[in-house]
């Protein structure tokens, strides 16, 4: 992989400029994101909200380097993701990014502990099990480390996913509808854990959600409609209902 230039003077962890994503479907083209521009500073917590089909998940995918834009650019911790190959972006993700998915996305053949260890092991680190166990203890799964995903409830699976997301101490965490598949009570627990871990680690958090109450717990809300940012507002600290 060629050396990646990082502008250390940069204070924004994420810098999105004129981001456009167009899909070709036969002779028709569908613009899902239309010249979206915004920046997120280190340590910020941001919610991306909007109705179904507004482009939230597409935006998350592009910001996290899971996909490439049709136009525009994404700089993640000063790294322009545009010129990078998919494998180079994978390395950036491993170094800089954590993920939490709506459907948990644990690897079914790995135990809870092994699932948490994967990102660190990918970096070639050894002896990571101690760190992984500590994280699992932190999310309240100290006694279920050796269970497979199939043996865990939805809430427990999402807790494992949270632990996995923080194992590499990422600079930025992307969460895609983290409570979307959970009941209210479990969802609230997960929210609490998410913000706790985030606060402790000082990670930047970007949450895509339908859930306005969750969005209100972040510091800033970006509202999308028809692929455009129609609102970008700070949430009053007094209104935040951090779980």
């Amino acid at each position, binding site marked *: 992989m060629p050396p990646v230039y990082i502008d250390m003077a940069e204070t924004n962890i994420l810098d999105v400029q004129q981001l456009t994503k167009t899909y070709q479907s036969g002779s028709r083209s569908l613009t899902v994101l239309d010249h979206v521009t915004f920046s997120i500073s280190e340590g910020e917590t941001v919610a991306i909200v909007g109705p179904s089909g507004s482009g939230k*998940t597409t935006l*998350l*995918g592009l910001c*996290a380097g*899971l*996909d490439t834009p049709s136009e525009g650019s994404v700089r993640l911790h000063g790294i322009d993701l545009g010129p990078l190959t*998919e*494998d180079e972006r*994978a*390395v950036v*993700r*491993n*170094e800089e*990014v954590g*993920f939490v*998915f*709506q*459907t948990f*996305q*644990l*690897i*079914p*053949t*790995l135990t809870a502990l*092994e699932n948490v260890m*994967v*990102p660190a*092991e*990918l*970096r*070639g680190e050894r002896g990571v099990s101690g760190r992984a166990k500590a994280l699992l203890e932190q999310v309240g799964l100290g006694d279920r480390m050796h269970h497979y995903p*199939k043996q865990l409830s939805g809430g427990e699976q999402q807790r494992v996913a949270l632990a*996995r997301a923080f194992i590499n101490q990422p600079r930025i965490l992307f969460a*895609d509808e983290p409570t979307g598949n959970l009941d209210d009570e479990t969802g609230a627990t997960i929210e609490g854990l998410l913000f706790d871990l985030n606060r402790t680690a000082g990670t930047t958090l970007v949450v895509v959600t339908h859930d306005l109450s969750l969005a209100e717990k972040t510091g800033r809300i970006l509202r999308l409609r028809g692929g455009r940012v129609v609102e970008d507002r700070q949430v009053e600290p007094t209104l935040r209902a951090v779980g």
Partner: protein
Amino acid sequence: MFDRWSWIMAWRDSRGSRRRLLLFLSSMVLGVAALVAINSFGESLEAAVNEQAKTLLGADLSFESDFPFDDSTEVVIDSLGGLQSRRISFGSMAYFPRTGSTRLASVRANEPGYPYYGAVETNPPEAADTYLQGRNALVDGALMNEFGVVVGDSVQIGSINYRVAGELLKTPRESAAMMLFSPRVYIPLAELDTSLTGFGSRVEYEVYFKFDDNRDVEAMMEVLAPQLRARDVGSDTVGEEQRRWGERVGNLYRFLGLVGFIALLLGGLGVASAVHVYVKQRLETVAVLRCVGATSRRTFWIYLIQSMLMGVTGATIGSMLGMGVQLLLPRVVGDFLPVEVDFAVSWTAVAIGFGVGVGVTLLFSLLPLLSVRRVSPLRAIRSAYEAEQSRDVWRWVLYGALGVALMVFAVFQAPDPTIGIGYMGGVAVVFGMLALVAKGLTVAARRFFPSGWPYVWRQGLANLYRPNNQTLLLMLALGLGTFLIVTLLLVERSLLEQFDVASDGQRPDQIMFDIQPNQVEGVTQILEAQDLPLIDQSPIVTMRIKEIHGQTLAELREDSTYHVNWAHNREYRSSYRSYLTEAETLLDGGFVGTVDPSTEVVPVSIERDLAYNELHVDIGDTLVWDVQGVDMTTVISSIREVDWQRMQTNFFFIFPNGVLEQAPQMHVFMTQTGNDEKMAALQEALVQQFPNVSTVSLSLVLAVFDEIFSRVSFVIRFMALFSILTGLIVLAGAVLVSRFQRIEESVLLKTLGASRKQVLRIMIIEYLFLGVFATITGVVLAYAASWSLAEFVFQTPLVTAPIIFLLALVIVTGLTIIIGLLNSRGIYARPPLEVLRAEV
């Protein structure tokens, strides 16, 4: 080569799938086992031939001639010194007076001494030596069993009765299969009825040498052989015999290897299909790994390592199994071997089998594995996401590598490169046709979908083309197995049928030959007395070509532009008559039936293939013959096509009446006895009055042919068994793979109110369609292949045998349904909640 993480992940990822992976790799096991067994056995066989080289000939050197050795050859024989032992071999009727049975036998009249190496094995063992002391004989064990002859009985050869001193079990130079063609009877040379070796008889004179002075026999024969050949004396050294058998056994095991190769190929396809489905089930995992930072190469490695381990495990089990199977092979092909083969593991064969097994697994796995490289991490957030698939150049590189590797292997394994290439071509056509039919079936099922059919039929039929269907793989596995077996059965039936047809109606079923001119009347009287028809009578005159195209054979041999072959050198047995038989068709020129005895250039008729392909002569060309010392000039006046399959005497050359009547000759008679009693009566009368006259009955030829064919087909079936078992494993694997899909579907159907009977019927209907279509395709291809073999190789009409088609249809389809249902058992028992909670 791979990093630690990839190894760890490969191991972890295989959890929960190891039993399934075991089934996938088992499709490789039998192919590798066949390869290891055959190559290892082949090596043991070659080693046995080399070690037992001297016993193959039984001597250091032998001379053979169709005539008694002339004076100059006798001088050479004398001058060679060493130990010498003579033998005279000829065909004659063996008559067993106690049982009243007769049979044409190959008689060997031996002097003491031979074999100098190896031994004649008899029961009782001492008979091998004692039979030479007096009028004793050793008789082929199979012949004794057939006729109920026991030691102490007598056997009449010619006009002399011999006491059966023992049962002949094993002799040098002759395998058990050879004995089937013509059973052996050994008698002492000193006690031979010399009237049997008179004019017209096919006699071989042999002398065997043993030298104790360590002379270089090969070098000596380089000088002597040309001189002997000029006198029509052939020679054999240990080295020549060793080379000849080495080539034969090499061809034998290579041929078996090609049959076993199909198993490997089928196994490869099984692996490819299994890996394809396995990878599909792993796409989410791959996407998550990509999300958390795994590069495409490292995720690819996880599955490559798994495939590699699968290949290594399969090849190891296959190699071990192959060593076991090798123990069986001497029993399977033992009848065709001249030597005893000891079991010895060939590590080269094991290494080749292991390497090929791992290589084939990897090559076939790589095709589906390539898609792992292109899994987008986006799948983790959008499960329905499908990346735009551009052309993958590596896919074509792999197809090329696979084609080249298989071709190289087939060429390496085949007796010669042309056969290897032809074989691969044939296999490719069969695979291609089966794949084409599978594709056509899925397209047709979708396009002409019978929307008016009952629900379960529609659902069963729709399973043929729905995503992740197993139609292609099952068609290949089932179709290929059916193709192999049906081809074998059809060819076997066609070959046997031609003899059955030949025995119908008024066709002759007994041939009597070596009848001397003064015996013609006597034999005719025997036939009349027994009320048997004389269907055909042909005089036979032996002769050799002396000149062709105005040049002597000696001159032609020196002409480097002219190719002198067997057709120039052989002794012809020609006949004369004024008519063409039913087996002959005039193709060109005019057939001349009678000429004046004073004709200087005699018009003759020649058989087409001999004229065009061997002697390269045409109408108007002249040939000068040496008719037992008298020159006769002939001109080709007509060209005939001869149906050699007919049970009658056929000739390359037919002379007109008028010129050969005075030449030394013998006669061949044909009659129809119709049943075994009349046949036995005729043979007994002939052997009593004219012991030199030999008879061959059609039923005997048929029985011998049947026996030989059944032994050959047993060998082929044994090897085909590997392919068929592999096909069944691939079938079971494919059904198992689709089982996971079916569980989800069946449980959903159940949740929606489908009864157990309906779910079962849907499955039965799907496998019924697959079984029926695969069998029909396999059978149609088998008919095409059998027709080609019958038409171009065996030149016999193809027997359609609809019963074979029906049996294949019932058995293969039934087997498909049974395996399908066995593998699907328990599906219905799954609680709907499992699926509803997506925990299948």
